[in-house]
């Protein structure tokens, strides 16, 4: 799938720069090899492919839009720094980018020790608060999506709900959650895994896939 003829051309050039014919290597691997070399065009292509995704991830966890934009810059900086470690035989690039992004966002939350964007686990949080937080930036889709997420989380068993709210939305570590909830780490770990599986099932139900 191609985004534009220009991006297609860049992809061919990236392949050629590695001395191979386009199609003989993973596009993702070729792109990240070029990013690791500091090639401006490759970094731009990386942003074109994943900038929106990374921004949405940052927007979900960061308390303000400015923090989200700062975080996006930091994440792409980290993507460049770690590009040499990417191996297309292990993971799709989107998974790798999201993992790097997620780790950075959670680290940033912990460093700043600020509350993330108000999420479902705060019982006092209302849709009105959310609209005020975004001050006009919010879209109807954001409200609707967040509402659905909140409902799905609310439907989980208590322990799973508590764990996923703290880990999934709050950026807490297993150990921190274990201390907060006074439960063994193994229990917390299992609860998180089951909670996410439950959320996936509910998404599938909502979309009529089950």
């Amino acid at each position, binding site marked *: 799938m191609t985004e534009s003829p220009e991006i297609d051309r860049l992809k061919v050039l990236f392949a050629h720069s590695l001395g191979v014919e386009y199609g003989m290597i993973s596009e993702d691997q070729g792109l990240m090899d070029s990013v690791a*070399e500091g090639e401006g065009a490759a970094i731009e292509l990386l942003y074109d492919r994943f*900038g*929106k*995704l990374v921004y949405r991830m940052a927007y979900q966890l960061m308390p303000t839009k400015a923090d989200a934009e700062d975080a996006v810059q930091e994440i792409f*900086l980290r993507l*460049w720094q770690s590009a040499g470690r990417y191996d297309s035989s292990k993971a799709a690039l989107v998974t790798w980018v*999201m993992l790097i992004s997620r780790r950075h966002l959670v680290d940033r939350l912990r460093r700043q020790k600020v509350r993330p964007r108000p999420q479902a686990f705060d019982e006092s949080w209302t849709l009105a608060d959310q609209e005020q937080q975004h001050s006009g930036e919010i879209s109807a889709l954001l409200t609707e999506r967040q509402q659905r997420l909140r409902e799905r989380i609310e439907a989980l068993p208590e322990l799973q709900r508590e764990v996923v709210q703290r880990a999934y939305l709050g950026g807490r*570590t297993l*150990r921190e959650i274990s201390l907060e909830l006074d439960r063994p780490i193994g229990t917390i770990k299992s609860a998180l895994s089951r909670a996410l599986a439950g959320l996936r099932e509910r*998404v599938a139900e909502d979309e009529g896939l089950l």
Partner: protein
Amino acid sequence: MSNMTGEPGKQPPPHQLEEDLREFCVADAVGALSEKEQQNLEYQEAVSDPGVRKAMWDVREGVMKQLRADLPKVEPEASLKHRVLARVLRAVESDFVNSTEGRDLPSGSNTAMIKRNWLERFVGGRVSPVWRVAALVLLTISAGLFWNLTAANLLNKSMISIARDNETENFAKFVGPETLEYFLNPLVQHVPFKSIGEESDARARILYFPGEDHAFFLTKNLPILVEGEYFLRVETPSVDAIVVRFTPRGQITGIDFVVPSGVNPTTASWVITSSNTQNDEVKVMQNIS
């Protein structure tokens, strides 16, 4: 896997590994691992076989899909792209300048980066094919010219060397191999001659080893006399004597002679004379003092 938060240890049975490791991968994907737990997980991944590593990433991928589905549908500002690229490329340039390659560059200079990027773009094919072909043609022509000039130079030197060798060999045949030493030994002193009177292409030279009583007299293009011969005479305050009598044989004439005692060939006066009769001496050449 109970040892995940401690030191990596013995591999647990596969089924236990699968569940425990899977849950850790889920937690990692959500960002719920501490830094140490993350490092332990990465170590576990590194020492696992490819199938396990792939499975670990599959678990992460599954969680990422879930995360992605829950993301807000917001769009970044267009200016964010410029800010991101500017920040990353500044870091790239700074990293390059601070590296070995760019150490001697002025702070902030991106000259080497531009050159490196240009070269990499050229070699990597990101320059138009027309320019690449033109550059290759120019390079080929330059290399050819250089080769030709070098080859011509070498050939010329070779030819000169061959000619010199031939001339020397011919001369040696004419004057004898033992006299060739006069021309090849750097210790030999030379006493050149010049023509007297009419301009001619006659040449003459005396060659000798300092301290020795023998010398070699060489002439070239002296006119061959119909009757009579040439004389080589030396004059000093104390000596006035004819040391050589000779008749030119062909173009070059070489004669070995005894230097009179007490005569320094370089400081003495030498003269070549011709005479049809003994009483009608004509000076033809004399040494250049």
